[in-house]
């Protein structure tokens, strides 16, 4: 259950980025976070944390989009590159565990989507 700790960091990043948007938008509609599979984040828990932690903030009601990235690796033994499942950190070609991670460790706020009210 590290999702609440990640959720706190996420909401704090969202609020500070949102406050810096010029001109100030009318509302925040959507937030995209990128999470590598190695981080072992349960999307439902992070969504719940986001909903709770944004209550009564300028980010309240915004949708959270979690973009999951797979674990991809390069095998030091046979130079195979591909995707591995969490829990089986073994080369898909030769079975070795001597793998260099390529993706899967990402954890960042990627994008905000805001709306500006048009002048009437």
């Amino acid at each position: 259950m590290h999702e609440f700790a990640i959720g706190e960091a996420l909401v704090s990043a969202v609020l500070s980025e949102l406050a810096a948007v010029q001109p100030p938008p009318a509302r925040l509609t959507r937030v995209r976070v990128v999470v590598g599979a190695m981080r072992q984040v349960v999307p439902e828990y992070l969504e719940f944390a986001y909903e709770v932690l944004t209550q009564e903030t300028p980010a309240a009601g915004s949708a959270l989009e979690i973009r999951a990235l797979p674990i991809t690796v390069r095998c030091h033994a046979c130079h195979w590159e591909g995707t591995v499942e969490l829990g089986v950190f073994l080369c898909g070609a030769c079975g070795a565990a001597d793998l260099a991670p390529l993706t899967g460790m990402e954890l960042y706020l990627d994008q905000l989507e805001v709306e500006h009210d048009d002048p009437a």
Partner: protein
Amino acid sequence: MTTPREIKVYRDLMGANAEWAAKTRALLAERSIAMVNVISAPGSGKTTLLERMIPALAGRLRFAVLEGDLETTRDAERLDALDIPVYQLLTGGSCHLEAKLVHHALLDLPLDDLEVVIVENVGNLVCPAEFDIGEAGKLAILSVTEGEDKPVKYPLLFHEAVAAVITKIDLLPYVPFKLEECRRYLAQTNPAAPVFEVSSLTGAGMDAWLTWFTAFVAAHR
């Protein structure tokens, strides 16, 4: 009518934790202290290993322990018997220690009198591996009463660890643990990390482990 707009951000969510970890590294470097982050599943023998190794190194290394637990001070009470500074960190249900909490706990320790700080992280193989707390190295512990495939099931910890210790080897005759397979997985997951096999009960393997540990501390303080 409204106009939608997308704003690219790219902001690392571990940034705040990383800043606290960097402060801790600077503090420890200034005081010439090596900090080791001990991570394992619950019940793998972290506290028992410390109960064995700290008295064995008494007179050679001055220790303090930061004891991370979800609840209760039972582990800290066990270590109090060793007559070293022990500070209990209760996460109140959180599954890992974060750099800020560890940093503040360090400031309460008598840093001038220490050479080693051991952080016994919350028993968990997933979350503690995620959070850098400013340690010199992570130590991965697994016991022979667990599965030998732990290194490939929890690659993040074993990939990052500076060493792995296999505990409870006195139980090997009674459990189906495949030691060779475990060693192979460990060697492949992290070719650079040495692996030690110990029994905190009988003391088997303890000399080699303590020799390595002492050298690691000397190299990182």
